[in-house]
């Protein structure tokens, strides 16, 4: 029997090599467990005087295995080493090999989606988790989009966004149809599903002109018009 395999230690199975390799979990994101226990165990407070496990620099030893009964102290040290988030994000993007929105690392606590409105000069971002209902969201969007000035942005069919109640009317009328792209990439009408389900599945929103919404299911359109 291989006693080493049954040895109790802190860290993931086969964990001895994970600390040496370039970070697999991506730098700058939340530390994986193996990384957190890799930090020095007894550097809780500066006052007691630093006792450094690596005094003679035994580089290959995984020193954190020495005392497995001691719980890891202060597992995460915020902002240390002092590498800027910008740099960490760039390296993380490289390692994962695809563009990741910086905001998506929050997972579960925020749900930012982009909201574009046809005719507006630029789009807004909203955190869906901040709202409890479709009405809340609608009110918030009306506020947001009403701050655009009637500048000469060259867009066709600019509407007067300065009037908040007007924007609200538009949102509630059949002239403008709020739609959203769900996790499967389909464009759906806002309001069809219960609010919590909407928050989970909505990736982005587009408030489109009624004329553009022709492609969406007519029955769903009817359903939307009938909602208060």
């Amino acid at each position: 029997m291989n006693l080493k395999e049954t040895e109790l230690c802190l860290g993931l199975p086969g964990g001895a090599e994970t600390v040496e390799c370039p970070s697999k979990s991506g730098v700058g994101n939340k530390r994986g467990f193996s990384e957190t226990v890799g930090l020095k165990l007894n550097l809780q407070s500066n006052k007691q005087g630093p006792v450094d496990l690596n005094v003679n620099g035994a580089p290959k030893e995984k020193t954190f295995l020495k005392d497995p009964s001691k719980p890891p102290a202060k597992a995460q040290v915020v902002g240390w080493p002092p590498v800027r988030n910008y740099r960490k994000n760039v390296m993380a993007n490289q390692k994962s090999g695809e563009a990741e929105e910086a905001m998506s690392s929050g997972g579960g606590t925020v749900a930012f989606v982009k909201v574009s409105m046809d005719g507006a000069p630029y789009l807004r971002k909203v955190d869906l988790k901040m709202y409890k209902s479709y009405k809340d969201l609608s009110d918030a969007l009306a506020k947001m989009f009403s701050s655009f000035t009637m500048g000469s942005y060259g867009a066709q069919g600019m509407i007067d966004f300065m009037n908040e109640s007007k924007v609200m009317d538009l949102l509630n009328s059949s002239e403008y149809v709020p739609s959203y792209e769900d996790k499967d990439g389909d464009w759906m009408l806002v309001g069809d599903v219960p609010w919590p389900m909407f928050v989970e599945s909505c990736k982005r929103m587009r408030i489109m002109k009624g004329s553009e919404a022709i492609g969406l299911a007519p029955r769903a359109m009817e359903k939307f018009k009938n909602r208060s």
Partner: protein
Amino acid sequence: MTQDRSEMSEDDDDQQSSPLDLPSTAIASSSTPNKSRNCISSSVTLKSQTFPDHVLENVLENVLQFLDSRCDRNAASLVCKSWWRVEALTRSEVFIGNCYALSPARLTQRFKRVRSLVLKGKPRFADFNLMPPDWGANFAPWVSTMAKAYPWLEKVDLKRMFVTDDDLALLADSFPGFKELILVCCEGFGTSGIAIVTNKCRKLKVLDLIESEVTDDEVDWISCFPEDVTCLESLAFDCVEAPINFKALEGLVARSPFLKKLRLNRFVSLVELHRLLLGAPQLTSLGTGSFSHDEEPRSEQEPDYAAAFRACKSVVCLSGFRELMPEYLPAIFPVCANLTSLNFSYANISPDMFKPIILNCHKLQVFWALDSICDEGLQAVAATCKELRELRIFPFDPREDSEGPVSELGLQAISEGCRKLESILYFCQRMTNAAVIAMSENCPELTVFRLCIMGRHRPDHVTGKPMDEGFGAIVKNCKKLTRLAVSGLLTDQAFRYMGEYGKLVRTLSVAFAGDSDMALRHVLEGCPRLQKLEIRDSPFGDVALRSGMHRYYNMRFVWMSACSLSKGCCKDIARVMPNLVVEVIGSDDDDDNRDYVETLYMYRSLDGPRNDAPKFVTIL
């Protein structure tokens, strides 16, 4: 030598900055102008008896126009009322090192003809998540005030400010002659705000977005530039994490005959870069984008990348390599011999790939890289780059206990080979006093020394001793040192050295260091030029904080987080020093009864505490 702005050390305001316009009667000032005031003002009053005032002011105006340095201008403005008035009329560039030191209204009331504003916001430690977001530093009140007061504004240079799309829209609308927008480490805006700037600012010469967080609003901002020939001289968008319309970019470059600096983002591939280079041989500064391919390249039709670089005879500054495919690196050989600045700090390059490149770079003055080049790579730098002024080595794997490919060997080699070194930032896992002492002796021109030994409290790994002697030697021997960042195991002794020998030190960064209050006291009672002090996780308490009260008005800011400060002491200081804003920044679960101060950020201010402080900030 021209350097890219971002390549310069952060401490770019290396002159002594006396307070902007603090009345020296109200606040004790240790700056030099008192002397000049005494002797010159008396002669001025004499003359004003014989010459009419307006003639004198006219003469003054013509003379003071030539004063560029803000240090000189600050001194001139303290001579007498007349000089103060005329200086205020002729100052065209205003530098504000802390946006909360004064209100926008005060700026526009005093200076009437400002064409250029440099404004800094958040403290640097905010970059390391030591402060919740939404702390402040909003550009909005500044732009709205200046919109009315300075319609002729040409340049805005912001660092660590919160800038919204609306702010950018207002800027584009309000300043018809606007020429230069530089945003460094900023956030709060997206490509839509940029689009408005590119569309409306017809005289735009410089658009530099550097290390800023720019949200992708899916707007084709490159296409928003006007159709005719542009005035563009510098376009940097390497931090914009959004695909761009390459065809539009190509067209833009083709109609920008003055374009010298171009920094692409990672959404520009090698093939596209190749096309751009062939069309823009006049470039002096290039950020190469991804330096890779999306798909498998068709090998028969692979462009001759080296030829494109050969055509760029003027390129002296090279950066980018955001997703480097190392096999293409040799394409840059033709420009190596001309390079004065090279930034490889996003490219994971091994020593074997690196050495052939660097051996050609004899003129290099600024070099940034990842520690993946190892001590071996640094030795190659030392052997070749005899003109090196600035070196920055960043960690590929920025964790406390990762493998450290660079060590005291690399530092020693650099110190022996690059005797003209002025600025160094060096991340490593192990270091020795001997190497640091060697650098202090070999590189007398050092003004910036920032060493980050990534393991907290790590001693000299050969002797086991603290790093006191190494840093002590730096402050003793490097007589021009203005900026210092320390790390490793440090006792109070190190701080005694700093206080005694750090005569010109303006900026000091301390983390996980020192044994007691005495350490901080040494610094506050010494270091006569100290302006910016940032400390984290060190055992300094109330006694130490109080020992600096005689000088906080002469400093730009003090930051202390996770130290041993009490609210009571901070309140005392706030009470005794009314022109000091004392912010206590807590985390969300703080209750007011806690006496412990998690983070203290205090700074002088002419206009009292700010009115935009978020919930988690308490201003005492």
